[in-house]
């Protein structure tokens, strides 16, 4: 075992995958000479050379479009969108091109590509360096994953790179250096579309990922003092979702609270709530609650940012209400 940070786990996965498979390439802004603004791609250029580690111009649509083409001609591109907030120019190439290409070509062509997107708040980044945009990509043909732990960061990135479909990999900036854990030295993969029970409980299910997973776990500790045993699900794959794990848990606890950073309206919490209302309604003892970012742009000033993001206290309060209902 080896103790690594979340960002080190990402860097290790990239090194190992590039060593294992010569078709894996890296492209994005500042990923080569600079080693990435977060150092996720540190050391790759020196080891693998500039044909496999490509510093690109500032052109996100091109980064994704070129990745699609590269994937068609036998490469396995791992593109970096420097901040998830910068992904909007590439929306066409992701949603109209990559997502539909396999289907459009009647299954004859695959698009094995990964798009790494540093995302999330709590870092004082302001509106264009803090957003959680995962809900933009609930698109048939795309896979969206988001690891919460160093173990998953490594295992899910490897799974994404080896996947035959386009995978968006959302990595939380706040977790990069704040979370450490021991991971096996030997090879492992974290399967796509498999959620994880991060804490067992019987009274209510908290469903989350990323930084909010840690706040949900903190909330669960506080709630335990009051006699509420919360189960906490770490989603890991956000689209298409592991419905089975969610339904199994909520079927037992009969109460569900979804927590995420993105604005509540149109967030993935709405889909979870709708699925539960549609198919598990008669087993529920309380309405499904969503604790989410505000329906506003993401603010900069710390007073506003703290108010915008779900806090541990807000989660505790929300879960209490759900359990009293």
């Amino acid at each position, binding site marked *: 075992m080896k103790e690594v940070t979340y960002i080190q786990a990402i860097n290790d996965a990239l090194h190992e995958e590039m060593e294992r498979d010569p078709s894996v390439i890296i492209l994005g802004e500042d990923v080569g000479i600079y080693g990435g603004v977060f150092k996720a791609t540190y050391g790759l250029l020196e080891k693998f050379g500039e044909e496999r580690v490509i510093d690109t111009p500032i052109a996100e649509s*091109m980064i994704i479009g070129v990745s699609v083409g590269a994937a068609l001609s036998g490469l396995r591109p791992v593109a970096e969108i420097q901040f998830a907030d910068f992904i909007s120019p590439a929306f066409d190439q992701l949603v109209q091109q990559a997502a539909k290409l396999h289907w459009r070509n009647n*299954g004859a062509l695959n698009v094995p590509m990964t798009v790494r997107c540093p995302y999330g708040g709590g870092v004082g980044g302001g509106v264009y360096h803090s957003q959680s945009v995962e809900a933009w990509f609930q698109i048939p043909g795309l896979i969206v994953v988001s690891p919460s732990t160093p173990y998953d960061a490594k295992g899910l990135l490897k799974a994404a790179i080896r996947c*035959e479909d386009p995978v968006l990999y959302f990595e939380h900036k706040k977790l990069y250096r704040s979370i450490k854990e021991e991971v096996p030295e030997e090879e492992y993969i974290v399967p796509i579309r498999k959620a994880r029970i991060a804490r067992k409980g019987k009274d209510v299910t908290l469903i989350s990922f990323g930084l909010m997973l840690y706040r949900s776990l903190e909330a669960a500790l506080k709630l335990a003092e009051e006699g509420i045993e919360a189960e906490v699900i770490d989603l890991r794959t956000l689209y298409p979702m592991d419905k089975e794990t969610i339904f199994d848990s909520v079927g037992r606890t009969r109460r569900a609270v979804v927590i995420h950073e993105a604005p509540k309206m149109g967030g993935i919490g709405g889909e979870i709530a709708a699925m539960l209302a549609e198919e598990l309604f008669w087993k529920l003892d309380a309405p499904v609650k969503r604790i989410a970012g505000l329906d506003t742009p993401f603010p900069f000033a710390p007073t506003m940012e703290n108010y915008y993001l779900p806090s541990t206290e807000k989660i505790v309060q929300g879960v209490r209400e759900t359990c009293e209902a």
Partner: protein
Amino acid sequence: MELTREDLERLYDLLLLTRTLDDRLRRLFRQGRFEGTYFSAIGQEATTVVPTYLLKKDDFIGPAHREIGAMITRGVPIREVVCQVYARKESPDGGKMHPCTFGHPRYHILVPATLMAMQIPVAVGVALGYRNHRRDNLAVTFFGEGATCKGDFHEALNFAGVHKLPVVFICQNNFYAESVPLRLQTAAEDISVRAVAYGFPGVSVDGNDVLKVYEACREAFQRARSGGGPTLIECTTYRWYGHSDIDLAPYRPQEEVEAWKKKDPIPRFKRYLFEEGILTEEKEAEIIRRIAAEIDEAIDYAENSPRPDPEDVLKDVYATAL
């Protein structure tokens, strides 16, 4: 490659087949024989048939939505081309895509996303793969002048120039982006001048002159294959009909249309072939007879071939079993 007399005759054959099939399909749409709409390429054939003919069979083609000529020239069976337009199960896209989304993965032609310019970065990415794998291949992408006004065009050509990738960009400048005339699309004198900004050559040629298109492509393809990087080729041409067959193109003066019809690439090439003694009346009559029979057979085949099953929509959303 140098064109032999056989090549020249074959090119005429392919141009005529493309034109005749296109015209038949256009009429069939008007008769209500298939759904959707139809995007005719009549008038523009030389700009796709000639480049495709000069490519190797496994060179990548990233088409737009008017590349029936690329399909024909690559040797995609006409039956499958007609099945595409009729949205039959045997269409290369399985009937999932609307008419004229011409592509065929087995023939290295991408079934395109028909949003303008989206195929351009993809072709550049394919060329990147060719470079990394040291493959002696070339990626070619077709688009109209309208697409050159979009960001994807700029981003893709800029990147291709930086890495001197084996890709050739073929712009079919037909002077209208649907209805918007060139003067409202760009203040530049022509489209090929844009290449200057990307550090590689741009050329403008008469896209209705088979031999001019051939010369421009030969030079660009050779340069790209020998590591010399991309070229932007602007072929000036004209579509005789509207953007799609529900567009009667009232935005174009009739005199302009007539003037361009006089510059039809096919009779121009035919005159040359007759002068050179490559083509004769008898040979041409034989080609016309054969083409008509092939097309009749293909349409009959497509009309009697099964439609997709409703559940086919569910297939191939993902390559992975999730």
